[in-house]
């Protein structure tokens, strides 16, 4: 099934209509603040969907913080990517033009995080350069993923980390550390003469992305 997920701000249903006309879909899912459910635009869109014999889903999100909104939209996209009854994969397209700047920006961020096909639909329709299925996971080697995921819940002494990273040796782990530090994903500091490693803010974002993409240590072992 093809699912169209669109951000929506209440007064901008024309942008959703543009997406509905331009992108093929069987199910429409709107994402917006809870208050938009009472707007004229929302009711109009719901009526249009009912006329075509379909339900329209609404996923309320809290837009008080950017990254929190990203997390919520990612959850919506992941839920929409699978049919809960048949378990089959759905094709998801995301329109980011509706709603506030924060909502649109968070939706764009989520599309890149998950590799979801995305569009900006207004008077013109622009397909965004998100490569299907390409996420941050593709940037990293197995050993880098294992390194990041090992310290995702908090930093630790490098010597302790070495045990987690086995069978990789010290030399390989130090090489991975150098690369991740250069990319500003990992920070190090000396604590009582020992090296302590932790993820930077960017590193934590990578870890979240890897987590969302279903990458865990067990999966690393299989790669």
């Amino acid at each position, binding site marked *: 099934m093809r699912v169209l997920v669109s951000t929506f701000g209440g007064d901008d249903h024309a942008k959703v209509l543009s997406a509905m006309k331009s992108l093929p879909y069987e199910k429409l899912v709107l994402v917006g603040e809870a208050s938009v459910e009472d707007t004229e635009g929302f009711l109009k869109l719901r009526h249009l969907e009912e006329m075509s014999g379909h339900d329209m889903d609404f996923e309320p999100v809290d837009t008080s913080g950017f*990254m929190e909104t990203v997390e919520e939209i990612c959850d919506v996209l992941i839920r929409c990517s699978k049919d809960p009854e048949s378990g089959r994969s759905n094709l998801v397209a995301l329109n*980011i033009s509706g709603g506030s700047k924060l909502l*649109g920006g968070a939706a764009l961020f989520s599309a890149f995080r998950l590799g979801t096909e995305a569009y900006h639909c207004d008077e013109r329709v*622009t397909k*965004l350069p998100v490569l299907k299925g390409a996420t941050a996971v593709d940037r990293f080697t197995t050993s880098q993923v294992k390194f990041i995921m090992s310290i995702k819940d908090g930093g630790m002494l490098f010597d302790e980390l070495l045990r987690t990273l086995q069978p990789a040796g010290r030399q390989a782990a130090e090489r991975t550390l150098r690369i991740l530090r250069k990319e500003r994903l990992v920070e190090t500091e000396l604590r009582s003469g020992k090296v302590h490693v932790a993820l930077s*803010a960017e590193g934590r*974002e990578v870890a979240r992305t890897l987590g969302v993409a279903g990458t865990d240590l067990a999966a690393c072992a299989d790669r």
Partner: protein
Amino acid sequence: MAVVFGTLGYRPKSLIPTIRSTPKVDKVVFYCGADPKEQDAPKKVAEAKAAVLEYCRSMNISAIGIELDDPFDFKSIALRIRRDVRKQKKEGKEIAVFNIAGGTRPTSSAALLVCILEGIPTVYVHDVTYEEIHLPLLRMEYNQVLSGEEREILRILFKNRAKMLTEVELAAIVGKHKATVNHHLRNLVSKGAVRLEKHPGDARKKIVMLEESTELLLGDDE
């Protein structure tokens, strides 16, 4: 020395604090544009632009305020910003931060897109709370997602985008066997970067078309 980029709407205060809080700024580049549907918009945008320019002049920082022809044309804005960002990078400037708080929604989203593609630190100011939020952006390293051959094919298609290249013609330009190029094309189709269409004059042939989004992916100065 560093460059601050920004998008500007009616409120200079959404951009000036970022200029002030960024160390060693020697240049500010910002984008603005008025909504033609709003009567007061040109005046408000001009006032905001003048305020930012005046602040920069007083601080001895060079500043360029770029008026966008159409602040609702997402694609043109994204291409323009990306070109400017790359120009600064080529000149060896460090882009310290991009403030995406001001301007129209398409301008802000287009700026965010460029930040993701170019790996620029990004700051957002919440519309309601005015809180400055630094986004932990990831640079999408498509160089690592696409193979060297795939990137080469995309570059060739982009350079020849006015022509309708068939798979055979593309293989000849790439200098590889048709079967090899077909293999890479299948991968690019599955990633949504290119599509194959029937040749209008010969149904047995297929034309290789770049998806519109690939232009944004590569940037128009490739």
